[in-house]
Structure formats: structure tokens, C-alpha cells
């Protein structure tokens, strides 16, 4: 897990350019009725910001939900989601 607000592409690298010093905060929105709880997004999240909920949706799946405020809006979860249920938002700070 990496600290909040650091670009995941920068992990372990020296920050030189101005672009890379920029910090982001992100948030995701999940269409819980369409989520099938496959957990592929959880496996791909570099900040550990997603977990499966204790609740189930109308089809009986434990859907993914966002936790904490570590999300940097890298959109890894969105691109690997097989059912395209994730929308990713990001702001510069």
C-alpha cells in the first residue's frame, strides 16, 4: 500500500518532473446492481481502496465498494472490470 495522494506510476521512482510531483485524489462509483463481485478490481487496486461489501445486491453478489480515502484515481479498477461498472473521478490538489 502506498500513501494517499501519490501517483501510483511514481512508486519507487525519484520524483523529478513537475508533472510527477502533482498529487491526485480520486473516488470511484460502482453500479452495485451490475457488479458481480469478481474481486479483479480489488486485486488490481494499488492503494487498497476497494473491498467486497457485506451486503448483497439483488442477484445475491457481494458487490465491490470503496473504502478509505487513499484512492488516487488511477482507473486501474475501471479498465480491468469485466462488467464495466466502475466510474473513476479524479481531482488535482
Amino acid at each position, binding site marked *: 500500500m502506498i500513501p494517499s495522494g501519490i501517483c501510483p506510476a511514481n512508486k519507487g521512482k525519484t520524483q523529478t518532473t513537475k508533472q510527477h510531483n502533482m498529487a491526485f485524489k480520486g473516488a470511484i*462509483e460502482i453500479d452495485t446492481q451490475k457488479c458481480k463481485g469478481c474481486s479483479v478490481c480489488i486485486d488490481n487496486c494499488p492503494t487498497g481502496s476497494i473491498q467486497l461489501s457485506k451486503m448483497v445486491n439483488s442477484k445475491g453478489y457481494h458487490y465491490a465498494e470503496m473504502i478509505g480515502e487513499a484512492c488516487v484515481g488511477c482507473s486501474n479498477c475501471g479498465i480491468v*472490470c469485466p462488467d464495466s461498472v466502475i466510474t473513476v473521478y479524479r481531482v488535482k490538489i
Partner: protein
Amino acid sequence: MTIEDIKKHGDIVYRKTPLLTDTVMHYCPGCSHGTVHKLIAEVIEEMGIQQDTIAISPVGCSVFAYNYLNVDWEQAAHGRAPALATATKRLNPEKYVFTYQGDGDLASIGTAEIIHACSRGENIVVIFINNGIYGMTGGQMAPTTLLGMKTATTPYGRDAKLNGFPLVIAPMIAQLDGTAYITRQAVHTAPAARKAKAAIRKAFEYSQKGIGLSFVEIVATCNSGWKMSPVAANKWMVENMFPKYPLGDIKDVLKKE
């Protein structure tokens, strides 16, 4: 800044592409088909070719792909998608024509069609989903099943003496002069999915240059058929499928040495 503020003021950096319909996919949780459908939809959206794309759906789990991607579709008989794509492309040379086929469809019953379409150098794109199993019919052995892999019809593992060796299609068709671009990708992680998307885009661009067939093989998972969780299936794929089916470009006729 709270999560709600970010959603209110932040930029949308990723969203479901409007080319995908709102239909809930019938695929099992974590199936690679959904990810590949999405990548194709994003490529078509970015290239702005929704009106000019004709897709051919196969027989297999992805037979219902026409419910999910909002482009024109034709549905081919089992394995015959390249033959149908040949006719479609020859009649509509300005259209982008692609087939979407699984390994049971392309590597087994449709081997003749794909080899001759490659040999003729049809200007189409072939998306080949290789998960080493017949997913739709309940996980029987496919030609691409790995040696030792347990399936419904090889309960003790695939045995070379009894069942033959896995069929590796991509290097085989790379020898044919009619092919322009052959690559093998995966969609199990975000970097791999981004590379696969770039490869699909390249294949679509090549198909309009009139230089031959573009073939994108996606090494995929079938977690239900493999009887694993989606995350475990991805791990198993990296450990077992990649040594036999290594990722990367196999042929690119326009690449400068």
C-alpha cells in the same frame, strides 16, 4: 475533500463507454470476455468508427456479444466467422470488419476457415480468445488445453499420447504471407489490458491499409471451467498459460527493423 466532493468536482477519468449497451452481461463473474468486449468498444469509440464497423460473433460463450456492443453484427455458424467476414469485407471494403472467436470456435472446428482467410490475406481483424477450454458447454478439452490440465473430458489431465499436444495457432499463421499483424496479449491486469487495447487499435488500423489479416490473440481465463475464483484463475493463467503462450508481438509487417 470528501469522496462526495471529488465526485462532484473531479474530472471523470474513466467511465463505461456508451458503445457498450446497458444489458447486464451473461458472463460469469470475472470472465475475460467482458474486459475484451469493453476494450474493443473503447477502441471503436476512440477511432469514431461505430457506423463503419461490422462484427461477426462466433458460437461459444461470446455468441451473445451482439447484445453488448452497439455496432452491426452478424452471427456465423460454428467456426465460420472468418468466411463470413471475408464476404462482408469484400462487399464493403470501406468498413471495419472484425470477428470475435474463442478457442473452441477458431482453433478446433474453424481451423480451416482461419488458415485460409489468413492465407488469402483478407483485410479483417480476428480477435481470438484463448482460455484453453470449452467454456459454454461445461469445460471440455479444447485443442489449446495445456498438457496435464484437468477438464470435464480429461479428468486425469490432458495426456499427449491420448489427446495430442496443445495447438498453438499464432506462430502457425505467422508463417502465412497473408497476415500483417499477429500479437498475443492478456487482460488480467490493468497494464496488460492497456497493452491489449493498443494492440486491438493497431489491428483495426492495419485492416484499413489493405496489407492483410490482423490477428489479436488474448490469453484469457475461464474461471468457471477451470473451477477457480477469478483472482486465482488469473494467477494460474500467469503461471501455467504464459509459458506455453508467451505474450508479445509475433509478426508486424510494418515494423521498421
